[in-house]
């Protein structure tokens, strides 16, 4: 099942957005690792496609999931809504997150989590804040000295 998303008004001529779980691994006891393909298709059939990864219960806490490859997700969101206003970007980010939740719910496992652990480079901090509602965030320095941020995003009710 593919979930299609409404395009933002100033959408850089992207016509269709889709979210689909393409690969699922049953980890244990409650964790499912899911590769989610996010795609944007323009009128001329030019497509932008990226993969992100979602772990349904990586820490054992049933209230949280984890989204990996946030940089790829942000690149996708920027591609789709580069001309949109900040309000439209937040609405679009929420819509994509909702589509990811729906995809996991319908294709993988009953899924009602709203908190997602993320870990991203300091450079994309402003983009993260534009597209998502940060619940908490804290900076740290990685072992290779990269400036990183550990955070939690929340899906609005």
């Amino acid at each position, binding site marked *: 099942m593919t979930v299609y998303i409404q395009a933002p008004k100033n959408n850089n001529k992207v016509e269709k957005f889709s979210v689909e779980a393409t*690969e699922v*691994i*049953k*980890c*244990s*006891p409650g*964790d499912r*690792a899911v*590769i989610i393909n996010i795609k944007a298709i323009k009128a001329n059939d030019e497509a932008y496609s990226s*993969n*992100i*990864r979602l*772990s349904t*219960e*990586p*820490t*054992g*806490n049933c*209230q*949280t999931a*984890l*989204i*990996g*490859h*946030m*940089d*790829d997700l942000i690149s996708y969101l920027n591609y789709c809504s580069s001309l949109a206003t900040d309000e439209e970007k937040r609405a679009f980010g929420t819509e994509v997150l909702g589509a990811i939740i729906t995809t996991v719910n319908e294709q993988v496992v009953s899924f009602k*989590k*709203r*908190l997602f*652990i*993320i*870990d*991203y480079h300091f450079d994309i901090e402003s983009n993260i804040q534009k597209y998502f509602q940060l*619940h*908490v*965030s*804290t*900076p*740290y320095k*990685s*072992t*290779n000295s*990269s400036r*990183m941020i*550990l*955070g*939690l995003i*929340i899906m609005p009710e």
Partner: protein
Amino acid sequence: MENNEYIKISHYGGDEDMSFSTGALNCTVTFIVDLYKGNSIRYRETAHLVENATGNCQTACIGYMDGILKVLGLLSLEEKDPKVAGIEFFNLVRAYIGRKHFFKKRLFFIDIREHHLSDVEKYFTVVVKEPYVSTNGSKMVVCLIRIPLSITELQ
């Protein structure tokens, strides 16, 4: 640790240690942690480790940290520094995972209840900690802990 007391990491019977066809986006290793006293198992927990959970190759994620803390709490440390016990435990985990993977990460995410934080700080070096209230109202802390590869790195 008493002479006849030891921890053994072993294979979990489920679908563990698998990778996606996309290769780099590899997956979870689930393992059983047994605390032995002599020849008998005194306590057993299951935990897991998610490699490259966030896409950042410098970090991994540890699941079921409360169980790991329970096992460490049952160890008789005697004069041993608890942080040394933490390193020794993870060296067992690394040795187990190292059979199939090259695993030298030092930074690990954990997500724990607030009342477990003092235990985490006892056994591990907490790099950052961020308290939050979960969607069910639980007081939680998301942390990044640093586990050196060897005891000399700790000093």
